């Protein structure tokens, strides 16, 4: 599941940096790429089949990418997912939803950002909400993740018309109007990657 995200970020990192240049410092793609390479390496070297442990290692690896705001935010997401994951090696749909909710909770501890602030939260909050709803509706994991990916994509799209209120891009004012928030796009790519990954490796 995780490695699908790596692939998509790799394909899109130039676009992410470009989006970050409208008022930000133009490095978001580079940073996400580094974070995802770290993620990949930590998955590859992980000896545990346990999801909880793996996600904890992934979280630390992502934070170790020294990625400005990105490292702690995305790292916290995986850290929260690790906290929220059970001890087993597989997941049912309800556990999946709880795990993602715990991820979002952990991110929320790091930032006051809400939907509308033009940050990762514009994609992450709807995506996680959608996971819970789809799980409650009884869908299977690939379908749940598909709904999440769609919601994240819509959330990222919605940032086009927003003015940033937090983070480095805050002072850009008009400059970023008409452009998506790079962090939100990253979130949507990651959820899309999860979906693709889930279709490939079945979980």
């Amino acid at each position: 599941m995780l490695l699908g995200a790596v692939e998509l970020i790799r394909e899109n990192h130039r676009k992410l940096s470009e989006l970050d240049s409208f008022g930000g410092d133009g490095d978001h793609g580079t940073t996400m790429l580094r974070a995802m390479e770290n993620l990949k390496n930590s998955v590859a070297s992980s000896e545990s089949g346990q999801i909880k442990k793996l996600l904890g290692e992934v979280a630390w690896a992502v934070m170790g990418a020294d990625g400005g705001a990105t490292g702690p935010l995305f790292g916290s997401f995986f850290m929260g997912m690790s906290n929220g994951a059970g001890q087993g090696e597989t997941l049912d749909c309800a556990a999946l939803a709880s795990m993602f909710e715990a991820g979002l909770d952990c991110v929320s501890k790091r930032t006051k950002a809400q939907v509308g602030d033009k940050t990762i939260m514009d994609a992450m909050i709807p995506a996680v909400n959608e996971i819970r709803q789809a799980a409650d509706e009884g869908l299977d994991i690939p379908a749940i993740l598909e709904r999440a990916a769609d919601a994240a994509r819509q959330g990222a799209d919605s940032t086009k018309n927003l003015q940033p209120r937090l983070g480095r891009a805050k002072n850009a004012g008009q400059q970023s109007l008409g452009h998506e928030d790079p962090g939100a796009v990253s979130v949507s790519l990651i959820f899309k990657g999860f979906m693709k990954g889930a279709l490939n490796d079945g979980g």
Partner: protein
Amino acid sequence: MTMKKFLNDPSDLVGELLSGFALAHADKVKLTENNLVVRAEPKAKNKVALVTLGGSGHEPALSGYVGQGMLDISVPGEIFAAPGPPKLIEALRMANRPAGVLLIVLNHAGDVMSANMAMEMAEQEGLNVRQILTHEDISTGPRDKPEERRGLVGCLAVIKVAGAAAEQGASLDKCWEIADRMERNMATLAVAVTSAAHPCTGEAISEIPETDMIIGMGQHGESGSAQTELKTADETAEIMLNMLIVDLSVKKGDDILLMINGVGSTTLMEQYVVLNSCKKILDSKKINMVRCTAGEFLTVQEMGGFQMFMARMDSELAELWDAPCKCPCMAT
């Protein structure tokens, strides 16, 4: 415009620059296995240690200030990106001691998040750390909303006075109080005239019209608030000084420290000219520039422009500012 920098593989950039830095200043600093910058000769354990963190690409900041009288450990991040919590907690563990550790953090989202996460871990582990946040960019928020103000070159003044106090054997609380006093009495405003290229992407990190200058531009080329046509040194100094004076409520007869920080391609020559302009204007306002300096302390690659830093000084702060230091990029 093609990027014209002398680089190798951009993904090794920070490692290479730190190796070169450690070579150039082997008498004063060394690198740990994990690329933390530490003193070549560690400070006595009974004195407070100073630690800071920050993105790379701003050389000589911040690692250039590791050494006697200033920092004990600098935790460099990637280009323009704060280091993550793993490196920072490693640094805090390494610095930890009964006398305590002062962690200096510039107010940028990434730095603050990493610092907060590391501080939570430090607390859980029982490390003796206090944190000070620098946020003095008057262009990004009013004085009563410090959380909106970015940390610019003012961190240097905080490191200098707190570092001097630590070297003299002050307690952690005293060092923190000194740092906090400096922080509350300082203000910075930046102006940019030309952009720089991001060394990893090769792209310009901001766009500035051919004949304009932008007041309030941030550490990484984030856009600022006021855009006007390029002005003379005297005019620019007047505008910026007035904004700083109002922000700090500096009055006739007050003692101030003024620092001109070139951010890249603006020459030292121009920085001296601006400093001279400031002196004339401050004299006319009967404000005492009791200390001043100019130089490239915290850069943004080859960006053109400078940061003007002002701080209200008392005699204790002035004495600590004057105290000796021996760092790679600052020594007296």
